[in-house]
């Protein structure tokens, strides 16, 4: 419902709307201790994922690369598993899977949740009520139950697990978006835009979206760690990653029977999961601090 001549202008406006205060944001992020630590951990993870073939000492899938269940030593820094595979190499390659899980699962839930929440919050009336009651119904099941149901439909596997986790947390993102939209809609600048004659698209994408996105970036970053944990949980149960994929949760579960003989098989994947989750949580906190207008506007 917008004048066609103005669609290009709208796109132009959108580009500038998301750009302001970029430099001060990064400075603020690096200035906060949690943001800095989080950023370093996540950067290390990304680096490991990108350069895995170069930095990993062995092929993560090659069996009998060394002796079986060998304790950590100079040649096998984190020991070997029951098939003689190098645990360190598996963890480095596992970073790829972990990042994929985080990005894909959060990507699905964030984009669907954002759209649902925006539409529900903007439209009000019947659309809002129907959409949000639907979300409420989904919200009343634990995320893992929804994820299990999805896996039962799609079948077992890591990709399906990512999608399942993504779908399961849509209600959460929809709710958050909805409430932020309601707050923004109540602010005078929104009414000012309506009074200026702005159409639906302009109101949603130029006025609401840029003001909603910062909150969702924070939530999304924190959500990555939840998604990684959930995927590790599903893999642990044998519903996610399948052998011989070097997925951290799956590595944990296969170490279960050997816990007393080869504790390194459990300790290192466990540490990797914990550090990654911590990293994303810290980064999320840091971003929240950096985006807080009380700190950037002064």
């Amino acid at each position: 419902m917008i004048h066609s001549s103005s669609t290009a202008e709208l796109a132009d406006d959108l580009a500038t709307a998301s750009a302001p205060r970029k430099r001060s944001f990064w400075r603020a992020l690096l200035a906060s201790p949690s943001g800095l630590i989080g950023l370093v951990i996540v950067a290390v993870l990304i680096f490991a994922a990108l350069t895995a073939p170069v930095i990993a000492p062995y092929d993560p899938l090659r069996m009998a690369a060394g002796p079986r269940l060998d304790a950590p030593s100079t040649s096998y820094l984190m020991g070997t598993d029951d098939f003689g595979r190098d645990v360190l190499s598996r963890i480095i390659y596992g970073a790829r899977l972990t990042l994929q899980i985080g990005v894909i699962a959060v990507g699905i839930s964030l984009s669907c949740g954002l759209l649902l929440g925006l539409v529900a919050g903007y439209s009000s009336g019947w659309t809002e009520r129907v959409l949000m009651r639907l979300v409420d119904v989904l919200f009343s099941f634990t995320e893992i139950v929804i994820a299990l149901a999805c896996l039962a439909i799609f079948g077992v596997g890591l990709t399906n697990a990512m999608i399942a986790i993504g779908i399961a947390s849509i209600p959460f993102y929809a709710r958050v978006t909805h409430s932020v939209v309601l707050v923004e809609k109540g602010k005078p600048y929104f009414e000012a835009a309506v009074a200026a004659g702005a159409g639906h698209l302009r109101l949603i994408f130029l006025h609401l979206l840029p003001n909603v996105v910062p909150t969702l970036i924070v939530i999304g970053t924190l959500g990555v760690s939840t998604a990684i944990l959930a995927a590790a949980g599903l893999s642990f149960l044998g519903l996610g990653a399948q052998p011989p994929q070097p997925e951290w949760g799956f590595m944990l579960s296969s170490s279960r029977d050997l816990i007393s003989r080869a504790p390194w098989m459990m300790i290192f994947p466990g540490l990797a999961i914990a550090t990654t989750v911590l990293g994303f949580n810290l980064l999320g906190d840091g971003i929240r601090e950096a985006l807080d207008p009380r700190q950037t506007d002064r």
Partner: protein
Amino acid sequence: MTPDTDAPLLSVRDLTISFGKGRHRNVAVKDLSYDLRAGETLAIVGESGSGKSVSSMALLGLLPRGAATIEAGTARFDGRDLLHLSDEQLRGIRGDRVTMIFQEPMTSLTPVLRIGQQLTEALIEHKGMSRSQAAARGREMLTLVGLDDAPRRMKQFPHELSGGMRQRVMIAMAMASDPAILLADEPTTALDVTVQAQILDLMRDLKARFGTSIILITHDMGVVAEMADRVVVMRKGRKIEEGTVREIFETPQQDYTKALLAAVPRLGAHAAAAEPRQVVDGPSRPGARLLHTHGMSKTFRERGLFAAKAGGTAAMQDVGFDLAAGETLALVGESGSGKSTTGRAVLRLLELDQGVIEIGGTDMRRLSGGAVRKARREMQMIFQDPFASLNPRLSAGRLVAEPMVIHGLAKGRELQDRTEQLFTRVGLEADHMRRFPHEFSGGQRQRLSIARALSVNPKLIVADEPTSALDVSVQAQVLELMLELQQSLGLAYLFISHDMAVVEEVAHRVAVMRRGRIVEIGPRQAVLNDPRHPYTRALLAAVPVPDLTRTRGTLPTLDASTLPTGPLTEIAPQHMVAS
């Protein structure tokens, strides 16, 4: 009530306060010195950012810890230096010897505790009273501040009281321990004028009764004229001038004080003029009828699970008026009178239950969604809070250009040029276009809003309290700009305001609203100089005037039940009053 000439009760010397550290250090108060004598009211006046609040908060140790530093200075009170006391010692003084009233009565009472409990807390703590003694004192104080049925009030929660009643409770709390000094930070700014007048009366009365010294922090010269014995004028953290209230008002020494006094709109200053001041040569005059409204009603209903509940609050009842091109109709009234609702209804920002709105002969209520958006080219709005009404993530240039983009009036180079013209038109510079709203001052932001509204050459602008968030000197400039634009472009303004003095400056006609109805409407001189409705009279009598020669008599008491609220009848040409 004459101030003692003995040694000062409180003596502040060389107070310097800064915010931030290192490169970001920002001095909020610099070398401030003043004395407060026993039984005296000292007004500290200044515009926003003058450091008037900060300097007083420092006395009670209420500055945000970490963010603000007291760099130098002493504040001697009772033989001690308030600025160098431990938290423990400060707590002993706070709420007992020195008490405070805040601006916002809605938020300065704890919502979950009963009035009685909040009132007696400090008495039990500081005075060592027993529970029943404290309760007796509490009831006595509530009666003193003019609340009826004190025992019942003690059992009520803050949300059960109105804003004015809550401010009375705050005053009762502040006065209950018989303090030596009462710090009042903008005590009446958030209140309606009629309530403000009652609270000021009450404070004067209590001061005479208890002999308390008052430090009154305010931006309102009218309140200063009514309350103060002596005045300290502050600007940008420094004391500009100090003197008795008579000296300040009659023979101000500093240019800034003179400018401040000159900028304050005074009710009655334009009483002799039949229309607003002429600010351009050959101004356009009110012309043909532009807006006609009739029988507008709106009830806000609570939303139930599926459908609207019955009942609700009637925000507008049978409201109707006409507005000509190039004319200003002021809608005045207190909070909850429905004046903002009316402004929004005219722009169709909210849907009416019934009524007629015609702009240039088109019935607005019959237009479809898309047609309404097109019609909005003709009518724009200026909002009260220039900070909140500009999208923080768009640049100033984009914001001003947005209405033109929406209505497809210009693009590319032409859009750029027209935006630049608008910036200079409202007194901003063209290279401000790339800045973001938070980089502008309050007055500049309101200029942005005006430029934005002007961009589509509207015929009607609804201005909802356009200057009430601004300092007086800035307010004067913005009003000047609005008058100039009206007279050169022939704009019609629907000017919503609670400030009678501002209304007198800009309006051709005035409509007074109360509880969703227009109780009096007519030409400015008829309504302001010869008010016929008792409510209009009460409203005008309550306005504080920055003039020492005018002493206000006793306030007319309003009996809500006998106020006429019936249909409007014409008592003089165009002057209509509810009967």
